[in-house]
């Protein structure tokens, strides 16, 4: 199929994020061409402030290097500015004449810094702070000049001033309002911020309007409205941005404050053309922070790849300042007009100020200075509309409650709700981070960033991510510290089970897709996944026969020559002459080569041809013995008190009863019972998964034995009085095993791994928990109501061969002569 042509104008943060989302949704849908006016691949513009401040380097802030574009088959034109969109011909033309045709076009041209048109604004040494080139210019200026002025006391201006200060220049910030960052801070926090920055060497002129830039060719100073002036030889204007929409406007696309788009990021003028990022105006707003832009990118990708309709609803934003040593956080409507319900905490010595504006016990806005650790939590609660009346008295000391040992951080993150957004820029929740750490075995922040994007944009959440790493690995490391299931995945049994559970995955194939399996699965992982799904969602999942090993798929044990064996249930090893006659008759009728009494007290018909299986089971009309399955095999019994002169308990009846109850249940591995009537233990109960031994007045239940490869004797679980209790404890034990056992792990190693004491606590001592386990087991048993062979026989009679049709013989002529 011919791919559609997708062209994007602008190679910046929002646009390239949209491309990433598109590639993730459908890597093969588009031939992609990107034009970027800057001569760099996509980089993290946000981090220009730390670059300027010397905290990181340009190389370190590249988000997608040229190799990335090549790997994804994207044609990249760096340093080429598009000058014209010819909508009639569906093509774009760059300043150097390069052209590209499109089926779909994305305009992601970002914004232009606003330069106040005061007289002299075009002199040398007057500049904005927007891109790498600007950074380079400032580096160069700092070597030659000494006095910098920054107009604009907002986020960007303060970050620029701090950078210049670090470069060894004098820096004065001129702000037209009284309060710094007045869009984000109230006057109290603004004052604290100013004091803090003054201490770091920054100068301020607030409530001051600039009227003229002085100098000959190069700026030499500023004149202000109050008549005062300031000498400077470098001037940064950081007074705001304007959506970069001239190109769109010239090609007839409707623009207002920005390029007007609908809820799907399509321009309202031309459905083939989309716009995303700072240049786009959605419901009257053009955003200037990355978090909402990344949300827009998601929606755009969803729409353009045809996944359906997902509307962008607009965003609530929060702000952090990235100047080192100053912690500022703000969100929402933090001013709190007259009569507002305001909580405030002020610690002048400690330099901490927190203010929450409440309305009907819900957070409406927040400003924090000095200690911003609870910022994300408050922001989450604000968005959730959480009622905080209960926490009210302690809220400002710590969202996670009083009495924790200071702000140890780790305590704080562990108390954080799962859905709290840790990385506001990329919308990454605590759960996303923790899951990635757990399932992908991450140990460094860098790995977390590359997997989840958390801490990948402004870096403000880097500490939180570190704390999450510490708290997650600290407690869970031991649990998750074992081998992956097999070579098809890096995940271990527990991780896969957890993912199936939380993501509600009900199909083997789905699990492999979602958990990024390498390849198509094998005989180790596929049956394991199938088991976990069936155990977790007995009612909402269907058994995947193609993921069962031959024995379980065929409901018969495969033999070395490809024939099968038939073992009907002989409950508790007790049979009747009629059953024996029936078995004998069938064995004769189908010419069964070997009839053997098994070590499990029943009869094995060996050497059966596949196509005879159905008919034999029909004639036998007995339940399947599950000799082939990770299921209950046999319940071996001795004759017990009914006949035996030493017998204290009726072991045979109990054994028969248990086998009938626990028939047809799938377990992590096969399960065998032994029930003996007295401690002489003729049923060899103490090397079975569950061994029950009759004693005077009761039964000893011991568990976790194995008579196979490594012989293990059972350990005593408990002593009970009645047969009912034996059933109850056995069911609870086995359900606990079903839920926590690893596929193909028998009870002996399982019991050793999880510990007999912990099993005892849940299965014996805690009656509530025992009841709950039994209830889950009973609910599961109810779903397993039909014997597999009875089902197969019924299907065959109705000629519904589909499900089990592999049993039917097909013959074709050996050679068709031409």
């Amino acid at each position, binding site marked *: 199929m011919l791919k559609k042509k997708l062209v994007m104008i602008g190679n910046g943060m929002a646009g390239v994020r949209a491309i990433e989302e598109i590639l993730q949704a459908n890597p093969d849908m588009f031939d992609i061409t990107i034009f970027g006016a800057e001569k760099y691949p996509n980089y993290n513009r946000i981090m220009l402030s730390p670059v300027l401040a010397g905290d990181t380097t340009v190389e370190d802030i590249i988000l997608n290097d040229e190799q990335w574009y090549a790997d994804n088959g994207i044609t990249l034109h760096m340093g080429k500015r598009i000058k014209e969109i010819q909508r009639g011909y569906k093509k774009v033309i760059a300043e150097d004449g390069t052209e590209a045709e499109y089926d779909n076009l994305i305009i992601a041209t970002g914004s232009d810094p606003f330069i106040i048109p005061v007289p002299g604004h075009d002199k040398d040494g007057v500049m904005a702070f927007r891109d790498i080139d600007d950074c380079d210019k400032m580096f160069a200026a700092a070597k030659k000049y000494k006095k910098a002025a920054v107009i604009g006391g907002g986020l960007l201006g303060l970050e620029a001033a701090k950078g210049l200060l670090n470069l060894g220049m004098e820096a004065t910030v001129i702000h037209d309002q009284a309060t710094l960052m007045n869009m984000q801070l109230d006057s109290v926090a603004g004052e604290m911020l100013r004091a803090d920055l003054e201490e770091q060497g920054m100068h301020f002129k607030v409530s001051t309007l600039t009227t003229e830039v002085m100098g000959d060719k190069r700026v030499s100073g500023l004149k202000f409205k109050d008549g005062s002036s300031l000498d400077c030889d470098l001037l940064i204007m950081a007074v705001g941005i304007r959506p970069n929409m001239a190109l769109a406007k010239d090609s007839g696309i409707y623009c207002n404050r920005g390029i007007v788009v609908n809820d799907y990021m399509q321009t309202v003028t031309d459905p083939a053309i989309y716009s995303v990022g700072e240049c786009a105006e959605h419901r009257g707003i053009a955003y200037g922070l990355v978090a909402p832009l990344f949300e827009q990118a998601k929606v755009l990708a969803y729409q353009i790849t045809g996944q359906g309709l997902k509307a962008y609803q607009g965003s609530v934003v929060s702000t952090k300042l990235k100047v080192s040593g100053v912690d500022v956080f703000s969100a929402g409507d933090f001013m709190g007009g007259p009569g507002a319900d305001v909580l405030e905490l002020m610690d002048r010595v400690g330099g901490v100020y927190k203010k929450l504006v409440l309305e009907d016990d819900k957070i409406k806005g927040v400003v924090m200075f000095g200690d911003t650790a609870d910022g994300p939590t408050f922001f989450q609660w604000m968005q959730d509309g959480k009622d905080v009346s209960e926490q009210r008295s302690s809220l400002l000391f710590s969202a996670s409650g009083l009495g924790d040992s200071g702000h140890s951080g780790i305590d704080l993150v562990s108390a954080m709700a799962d859905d709290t957004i840790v990385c506001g820029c990329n919308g990454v929740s605590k759960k996303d981070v923790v899951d990635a750490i757990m399932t992908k075995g991450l140990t460094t922040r860098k790995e977390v960033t590359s997997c989840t994007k958390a801490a990948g944009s402004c870096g403000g959440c880097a500490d939180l991510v570190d704390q999450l790493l510490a708290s997650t690995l600290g407690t869970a490391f031991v649990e998750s510290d074992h081998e992956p299931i097999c070579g098809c995945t890096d995940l271990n049994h527990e991780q896969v089970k957890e993912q199936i559970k939380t993501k509600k995955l009900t199909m083997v194939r789905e699990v492999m897709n979602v958990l990024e399996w390498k390849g198509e699965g*094998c005989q180790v992982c596929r049956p394991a996944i199938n088991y976990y799904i069936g155990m977790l969602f007995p009612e909402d999942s269907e058994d995947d026969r*193609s993921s069962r090993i031959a024995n379980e798929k065929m409901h018969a044990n495969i033999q070395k020559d*490809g024939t099968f064996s038939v073992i009907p249930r002989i409950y508790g090893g007790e049979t009747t002459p009629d059953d024996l006659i029936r078995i004998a008759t069938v064995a004769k009728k189908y010419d069964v080569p070997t009839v053997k009494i098994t070590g499990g007290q029943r009869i094995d018909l060996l050497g059966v041809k596949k196509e005879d299986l159905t008919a034999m089971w029909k004639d036998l009309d007995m339940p399947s013995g599950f000799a082939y399955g990770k299921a209950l095999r046999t319940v071996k019994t001795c004759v017990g008190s009914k006949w035996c002169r030493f017998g204290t308990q009726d072991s045979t009846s109990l054994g028969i009863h248990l086998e009938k109850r626990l028939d047809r249940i799938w377990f992590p591995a096969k399960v065998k019972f032994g029930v003996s009537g007295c401690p002489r233990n003729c049923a060899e109960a103490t090397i079975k998964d569950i061994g029950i031994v009759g004693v005077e007045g009761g039964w000893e239940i011991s568990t976790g034995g194995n008579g196979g490869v490594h012989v293990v004797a059972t350990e005593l679980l408990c002593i009970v009085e009645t047969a009912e209790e034996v059933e109850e404890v056995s069911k609870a034990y086995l359900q606990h095993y079903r839920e926590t056992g690893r596929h193909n792990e028998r009870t002996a190693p399982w019991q050793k791994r999880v510990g007999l004491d912990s099993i005892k606590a849940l299965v014996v001592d805690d009656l509530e928990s025992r009841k709950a386990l039994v209830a889950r087991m009973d609910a599961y048993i109810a779903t397993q109501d039909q014997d597999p062979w009875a089902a197969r026989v019924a299907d065959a009679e109705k000629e519904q061969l589909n499900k089990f*049709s*592999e049993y039917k*013989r*097909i013959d*074709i002529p050996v050679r*068709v002569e031409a």
Partner: protein
Amino acid sequence: MGNATAAWIEVCKLDEIPPSQARTVNAGDTVIAVFRLTDDRVKAIENRCPHKHGPLAEGIISGDDILCPLHNWRIHLDDGVVAAPDEGCVKTYPVKVEDGQVFLSL
């Protein structure tokens, strides 16, 4: 097609092979396993593992490979070649599906 040696023989309906599983077809003494892959493509190879003659039809299909049910050798269904470290090769047969009908050529 039209080739005398490639006479197509009707085998069964595609529906009669359970999804991601196989059926065996007897051609005289030879047993052929016809696999229906996850995406409904069909492959046919002799139902006899080169190791100890395991019946391949009962194995687990993994992509375009079959895992022998007896000792888990991995055999590629296109060319019948056994994956390393094991060695060997199984005979493959041309097979096609038309209008939901599976045809085999010996």
